[in-house]
């Protein structure tokens, strides 16, 4: 538990200039610019569906197994399938080695990602089953839950799981008093707020939303809009990646 607290404390405001006089961020981006993102579908052999995403320095692989019979039986829902997402940070994905196994942070993230995916998956089509979604963060640099969720929805599509829509996630936040898109690690650590958002892009309905930090209502509105715009850009990349996987390999 201490480990998590340490991370939370990292957020503490330190003296560090994150946006320069020209409005450029420490990696040269403008306020509304995403980090470079690459996505690839169908990267694993055993899984029923899979995807890999590189998002700035984040590297995440997602794998889907199922729908398959839920075990033990008493967890089965006779009316619909269950989406069981597991977000995991690999021990060497962070600067200070993380002890293997779930911690409180990853349990919470797994829960809200499961819920976000369940919003999109047509679970009524396969009662009594489970769809297991693994997200393995191989290298982390802030924004891993958004990267994981975005890859997970690609892996679901790759597995042929029926969905109302893809799910796509992106964060906005506040850094040096300014609302910006897609925080990287230093911005997350020394910034003032983080707002991860996931939507189903066709309807723009929000399926994941968290916030911590310090935002006025106006800043929140701006950040939410910015995050949704980011999601839409990522959605185009998702569609492209899915097209490549059908056409390509």
């Amino acid at each position, binding site marked *: 538990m201490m480990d998590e607290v340490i991370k939370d404390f*990292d957020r*503490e405001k330190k003296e560090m200039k994150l946006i320069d006089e020209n409005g450029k961020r420490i990696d040269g981006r403008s306020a509304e610019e995403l980090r470079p993102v690459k996505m690839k579908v169908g990267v694993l052999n055993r899984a029923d569906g899979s995807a890999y995403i590189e998002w700035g320095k984040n590297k995440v692989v997602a794998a889907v197994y199922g729908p398959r019979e839920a075990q033990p039986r008493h967890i089965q829902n006779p009316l619909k399938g269950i989406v069981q997402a597991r977000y995991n940070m690999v021990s060497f994905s962070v600067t200070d080695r993380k002890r293997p196994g779930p911690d409180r942070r990853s349990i919470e993230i797994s829960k*809200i990602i499961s819920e976000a995916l369940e919003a999109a998956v047509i679970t009524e089509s396969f009662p009594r089953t489970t769809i297991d979604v693994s997200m393995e963060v191989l290298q982390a640099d802030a924004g891993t839950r958004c990267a994981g969720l975005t890859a997970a929805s690609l892996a679901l599509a790759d597995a042929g799981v029926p969905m109302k829509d893809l799910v796509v996630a992106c964060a906005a936040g506040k850094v040096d008093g300014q609302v910006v898109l897609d925080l990287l690690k230093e911005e997350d650590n020394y910034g003032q707020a983080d707002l991860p958002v996931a939507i189903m892009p066709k*309807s723009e309905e*929000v399926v994941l939303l*968290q*916030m911590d930090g310090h935002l006025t*209502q106006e800043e929140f509105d701006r950040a939410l809009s910015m995050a949704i715009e980011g999601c839409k850009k990522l959605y185009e990349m998702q569609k492209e990646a899915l097209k490549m996987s059908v056409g390509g390999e």
Partner: protein
Amino acid sequence: MDIMSLVNKDFIKARLKEGKRIDGRGFDDVRDLEITTGLIGTAEGSALVRLGNTRILVGVKLAVDKPFPDTPDEGILITNAELRPAASPTFEQGPPNPEAIEFARVVDRGIREGQTIDLKKLCIAEGEKVWVVFLDIHVLDYDGNLFDAGNYGAVSALLTAKVPEHEGRESFDMPVLHTPVSCTFAKIDSSLLLDPGLEEEGVADARLTIVFDEEKNLRAMQKGLDGSFKRDEIKELMDRASRKSEEIRKIIDQKVKL
């Protein structure tokens, strides 16, 4: 929470179509809120919250420990929640499950990001010794909307907590900077209900928790459940939460001062 809905889902929804909640409340009405502080003499601060029939006991314990290396001059906050089997037929014995962990972390986020505690004032000797604040949330009776009850209890317990005397340094009041207040809404079909009761939670599609501080700044949010929110719904809830959190803060202030 995986609860069997106690009353018929259709009944709740039919009433909502007529604009009515099953217990007669308005969509923005909070259930009766009672807060009693200082009941637990072994704790440095405590608050018993009754929100409708939901009852939660929050205790604050302090201990001296080393600071974290990256914040050598700050105290430490650790939040834990126990959904004990006494409080509900659906709560099981064992280590905290994902529901309990999310609950603890959402309450923690409101308190931490709301800068409720002035952690700098909990430094005893920089880099050597600081106060650790254990915020323990114990659910006694579960009738819906733990998140808000937990927040009200945590804030109330902290507002009335004392930092004990330590090596000649006198006891002092817990240094509180802000009072973040949480408002949780359930979405059922297209109805958005503040402070959902147990039966409402059991049929809800989605949940949104919004925490505002006394300067009307947003401090924390958490969306839950497998439904979704439209953007204008979020905007609406933001406004409603901003307004209601002020009302609730007044109730807390009043109860805590009694």
